[in-house]
C-alpha cells in the first residue's frame, strides 16, 4: 500500500471527473466527504476528508474533572457507549488502584455485549440499505429496538448509557430481568439465524458482496485496521481473548473469523458475533454472583496519583484505547482517544481504488466506521 492511494494527486483528465460524496449524502450516518476521481463508473483515486463533526473532545476532557468526563465518553461513539464507559473506567481504576466488584464485572460484560449486538445490528442494517436491501435494514433496526429495550431496562437510557462507574456500575439489574432477557434474546437468535439464511441464499445479494472490497490478512495488518474487518480477513485478533479483561477469561466463546476478507465476510462476522454475544450474555446471566454492584464509596471526587495508563478494549468496531495522563490534579493532563473507526476510515480509500461507484456505499458501510468517533 502506498500513500498515493489515499490522495487525489492530479486534476482529472478529460475522460475523468471528480465526484464528491458528502458531506451531506445518504451514504452513512455522520458527515464526511469522500472525493472520488472516476472514469466512467470506475474509481481511479479516492480521498477521504473528515473532521466535519470534530468536537475537540480531547481538549474539552482536559478541562473536566474525572467524573464529569464519564458521561462524555458515551458521546465518543454513541453506538458503543458502554464499551467507552468501560474502557475509561478500567483506565481510571488502574490509576486509582481499585478493582470493580465481581458482580459489577459481570454486569459490565453483559452491557458491553448488549451494546455490541445493537451496534452490529445497526451496522448491518446501514450496510444492507447501501446495497439496496431496504427491507433488511428495517428488519435490523426492528431487531435492534428489542436489544435497546433490554439495555434501557438496565441503564434507563436508549443510547448514551453512562453505566459504568469507578469500581462498579451505576445500578443493579431490575427484578425479573433474567427471564425477560432470555426470552427476548432467544427470539433475537431465531431472527438473526433466519436473516443470515436469507442473506446467504439471495443470489443478488451474493453477487453484490462476494469478492467486493477484498482485504487480505496482510493488507489489513498493513493498514492497521482491527475488529470485524480484520477478523473477516482471517486474523484471530480479539482483545477479549488476547488480553482478557473483566471476566472474559471465565466465559466460553469463540472468536469469529472468516477467510475471504470481502464485504460478505465482514457482514457475516458481525452476524455470527451477534450470536456469540448472545451466548456470552446467557452465560453471564447464569454465572452472575450476588453481592454488591459497586464499591461502598464510589470515588466521585478523585485525584489520582501522577502517572499514566493506556487501557484498551474490544469495541464493536475494534480496538478502543484511552491514554490518560494524570498530573495529580482532579482533571486529566492529557486524554487521548484511540478509536477503532479512525483506523478503519483511514483504510477506506485504498480499498475503493478500482471498484465501481455502486460499490462505494457497500464497502464504506461494511467497514462500519462511526464518523463521530473518527472525528472525536
Amino acid at each position: 500500500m502506498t500513500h498515493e492511494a489515499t490522495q487525489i494527486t492530479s486534476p482529472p483528465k478529460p475522460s475523468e471527473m471528480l465526484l464528491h460524496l458528502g458531506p451531506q449524502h445518504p451514504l452513512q450516518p455522520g458527515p464526511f466527504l469522500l472525493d472520488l476521481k472516476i472514469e466512467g463508473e470506475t474509481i481511479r483515486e479516492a480521498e477521504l476528508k473528515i473532521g466535519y463533526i470534530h468536537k475537540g473532545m480531547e481538549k474539552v476532557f482536559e478541562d473536566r474533572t474525572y467524573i464529569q468526563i464519564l458521561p462524555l465518553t458515551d458521546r465518543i461513539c454513541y453506538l458503543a457507549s458502554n464499551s467507552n464507559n468501560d474502557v475509561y473506567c478500567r483506565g481510571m481504576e488502574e490509576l486509582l488502584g481499585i478493582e470493580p466488584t465481581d458482580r459489577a464485572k459481570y454486569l459490565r460484560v453483559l452491557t458491553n455485549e448488549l451494546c455490541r449486538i445493537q451496534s452490529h445490528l445497526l451496522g448491518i442494517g446501514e450496510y444492507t440499505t447501501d446495497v439496496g436491501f431496504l427491507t433488511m435494514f428495517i428488519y435490523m433496526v426492528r431487531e435492534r429496538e428489542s436489544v435497546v429495550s433490554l439495555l434501557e431496562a438496565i441503564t434507563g437510557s436508549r443510547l448514551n448509557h453512562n453505566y459504568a462507574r469507578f469500581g462498579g456500575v451505576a445500578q443493579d439489574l431490575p427484578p425479573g430481568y433474567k427471564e425477560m432477557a432470555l426470552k427476548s434474546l432467544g427470539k433475537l437468535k431465531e431472527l438473526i439465524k433466519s436473516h443470515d439464511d436469507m442473506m446467504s441464499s439471495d443470489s443478488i445479494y451474493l453477487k453484490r458482496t462476494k469478492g467486493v472490497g477484498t482485504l487480505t490478512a496482510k493488507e489489513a495488518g498493513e493498514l492497521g485496521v482491527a475488529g470485524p474487518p480484520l477478523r473477516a480477513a482471517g486474523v484471530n485478533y480479539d482483545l477479549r481473548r488476547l488480553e482478557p479483561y473483566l471476566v472474559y477469561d471465565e466465559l466460553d466463546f469463540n472468536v469469529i473469523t472468516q477467510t475471504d476478507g470481502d464485504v460478505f465476510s465482514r457482514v457475516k462476522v458481525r452476524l455470527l458475533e451477534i450470536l456469540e454475544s448472545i451466548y456470552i450474555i446467557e452465560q453471564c446471566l447464569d454465572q452472575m454472583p450476588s453481592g454488591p454492584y459497586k464499591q461502598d464509596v464510589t470515588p466521585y471526587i478523585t485525584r489520582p496519583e501522577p502517572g499514566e495508563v493506556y487501557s484498551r478494549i474490544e469495541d464493536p468496531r475494534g480496538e478502543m484505547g484511552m491514554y490518560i495522563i494524570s498530573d495529580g490534579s482532579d482533571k486529566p493532563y492529557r486524554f487521548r482517544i484511540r478509536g477503532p473507526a479512525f483506523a478503519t476510515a483511514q483504510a477506506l480509500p485504498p480499498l475503493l481504488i478500482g471498484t465501481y461507484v455502486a460499490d462505494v456505499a457497500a464497502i464504506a458501510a461494511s467497514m462500519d466506521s462511526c464518523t463521530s468517533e473518527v472525528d472525536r
Partner: protein
Amino acid sequence: MGTFVELYDGIMELLVVLFSTWALAPWVRGVLGGLVIGAVFGGALVMVYLERKFLGDIQSRIGPNRVGGRFGVLQLIADAIKLFTKEDIIPAKADKWLFIGAPIVALTSGFLMVAVIPFDLLVINGKEYAVAVSRMDISILYLEAVSGLAIFAIFMAGWGSGSKYSLLAGFRNVAKMIGYEVPLGISIISVAVMAHSLDIVEIVQAQSTLWYIIAQPLGFVVFFIALLADVGRIPFDQTEAEEELVAGWATEYSGMRWGLAFFAEYLHAVVGAFIITLIFLGGWNGLPLIGNLNIPGIFWLIAKTIMVIMLFIWVRGALPRYRIDQVIDIGWKVLIPLALLNLLWSTIIGLIWA
C-alpha cells in the same frame, strides 16, 4: 350479479352506439382519451398508495394511517397539494429547457402509451368494438416505440440537471436500456408471431383458449425482467439508487417538477402492468378452465393488473439492487439469448398451432 352485468352491458352498448355514431368527431375521441388517461392516472395514484401500504406491511410498518381516515387514503392528495405549492427552483447550472422538458417528455410518453391500451372487446350486433382510445393494427409496436421516449426523458434530466449524480444516472439508464429494449422487443415479437398479429386486441383474443404465460413461460420471464428494468424498479433502480447517487436523475428536481417525474415512473409501471396482463395473462379473458364467470372483461383485466402491480411491489420489498455492470451483463448475456430461444420456440409452436 346478473343485473350488474346487464347494467354494464347497457352502459357499454350506449357508449358504443354513441361512439360509432360520432366516431368521426374528433372531440369524442378527445373525451374518451381524457377519460382513459384519467383512469390510468388514477391507477398510478392507486399504485403509489398501494406501494406505501403494502411495502409497509412487508417491512412490518403500518404505512400512512392518519391522513384521511385510518387507511390514510388522502395521503397522496396531501402530498400532491404540498408539491404543487412548493417553490420552483431551476439550478443555475442546469440546462433550462432540458430540465423543464424531461418530466413533460416522460409523462407524454406514458400518455401516448395509454392511447392504444384496450380495456375490453365488446361484440354488439356482430360487430367488434375495442374499448380503447385508438385501435391500431400495429399497436404493440407503437407501444414499444413510445415507451422508448422515457429513456430520452431520463437522459434529458440527467444531462440537463447539471449535477454529477444526475449525469451518472442518465448514463446508467442509457447503458441499461440499450441492453434491455432488445429482449423486451424480441419477446413482444414472439408474442406477435404466435398470435399472427401486431394488434393487441387480436393478441388478447388469441389467448382466449391458452394464455401465453403457459404457451411461452420463458418469454414471460424475460419480458417481466426486462419490464422491471424498463420501469426502473428494484432490483434495477440503479438510476435512482439512493445510497449511491442521492436520488439519481431526479436529484435536482423539486416541487411539482419532481412530482411529475415521479408520477411518470409510476404511470409507466402501471402501463407496463397492463401490457404484461394483455399479452401474457390473457387480458380481459377469464381464468383458463373456469371461464369469465359472467364478470365483465374489464374487471378481469384490472384485477390481473393489480396482481401484477402487487408483484412489482413485492419484488421491491424482497430484493437488493444489482450493480450497473451486472445489470448490463444480465441484459446482454442472459436475457437476449433467452429471448431469442423463446422466439424460436414460439415460431415453432405458432406454426404447429396455426
